[in-house]
């Protein structure tokens, strides 16, 4: 057979593409359930990380069910839209942030640790190279930071990527996101030697200025949406 004729080449290409497409579709749909479970489990682990829970050797899903007692969906006016467990968890905050502010559904996770209530708020923003995101856990006064968790897609290792390390995240513990007049001001991330006005601050990462500013803006914008809820 002449393997160099136009017809042969064309048919060969078409058959190859169809076969490969079928194969990939099969694999993708076959593994989808396990993959979704992994993504959900990873999200639960991230939420728990903001509570500084040691998950070493534990089943994250079980710990999550035990500690997270309530999941709330609120809007910017602090109206509670849903308290059904699972609904807040299923919200995709990337999609929500594309909506108008008044229409956004905002998830809040309520945790119970040593019989004290903690509120966990998801945050998302932009770093230097790509998205950064995380969870901020607040004490029951909805003001004092209990713990934070940050992660990133592609920040520079050793510089911006340090936001994922406990040394940076733990600096937020005990800081307040409201000022004395109970207005929301967030927390500043400042270069050493500089002082933020009218708000509390932590040290930025040396060499990771843009990522550090990204964290600052992320906190301001993401937690800012919850202002009404926090003042309740």
């Amino acid at each position, binding site marked *: 057979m002449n393997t160099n004729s136009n017809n042969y080449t064309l048919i060969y290409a078409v058959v190859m593409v169809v076969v490969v497409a079928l194969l990939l579709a099969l694999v993708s749909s076959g593994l989808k359930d396990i*993959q979704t479970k992994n993504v959900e489990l990873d999200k639960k682990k991230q939420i728990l990380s903001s509570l500084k829970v040691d998950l070493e050797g534990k089943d994250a899903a079980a710990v999550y069910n035990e500690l997270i007692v309530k999941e709330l969906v609120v809007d910017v006016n602090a109206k509670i839209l849903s308290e059904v467990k699972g609904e807040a968890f299923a919200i995709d905050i990337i999609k929500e942030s594309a909506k108008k502010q008044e229409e956004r559904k905002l998830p809040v996770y309520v945790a119970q640790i040593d019989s004290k209530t903690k509120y966990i708020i998801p945050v998302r923003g932009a770093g230097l190279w790509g998205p950064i995101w995380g969870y901020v856990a607040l004490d029951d006064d909805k003001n004092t930071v209990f713990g934070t968790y940050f992660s990133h897609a592609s920040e520079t290792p050793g510089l911006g990527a340090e936001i994922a390390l406990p040394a940076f995240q733990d600096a937020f513990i005990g800081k307040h996101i409201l000022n004395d007049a109970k207005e929301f001001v967030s927390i500043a991330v400042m270069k050493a030697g500089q002082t933020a006005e009218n708000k509390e601050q932590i040290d930025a990462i040396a060499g990771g200025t843009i990522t550090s500013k990204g964290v600052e803006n992320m906190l301001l914008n993401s937690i800012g949406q919850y202002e009404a809820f926090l003042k309740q």
Partner: protein
Amino acid sequence: MSKLISDKTKDIFLGPLGKNNPVTVQVLGICSALAVTAKLEPALVMGLSVTIIVAFANVIISLLRNTIPNRIRIIVQLVVVAALVTIVSEILKAFAYDVSVQLSVYIGLIITNCILMGRLEAFAMGNKPWESFVDGLGNGFGYAWILVAVAFFRELFGSGTLLGFRIIPQAAYDAGYSNNGLMILPPMALILVACIIWVHRSRNKELQEK
């Protein structure tokens, strides 16, 4: 059995591990060698993934070699590699989620790893499936051991750990030792690869240019 491990196949397998190493002699696959060698674990997974993909892509192309139209042979090779890479990436996402997050885009970038296209075009297009399979394994392992060697030094001196376990004791840090930050950054991978090439060339004089 004698046919399966003849001298020729042995050469095909052992060549890429030493004298004809894809990384240190042909200087292929350097990009991923920089990207995934800051820690040992992703380097191991990357080495293994590339080995599996290059071996099976070699077999598939070798089986198809007499039917592939010459004018679209590169496209056919690319499609086979891309399909295999996508399958490996999906499997990792399902069964080794943490690792797949760590490797993120680099799994996808296996497609562009020159070792794969190089072996498919240079070997599998003209050899039988079994030899091609062995050649793929040889080149995959040849690539993998360089990655693992580089990652070993980078993780040990950059983070003081190996596979996440602490190797350099806390006492050393208390006494003033500190991790080398340069080890974590990509340039150090180049320097380490260069050191391996240096040792390799001084041991194999025939590789040196006059």
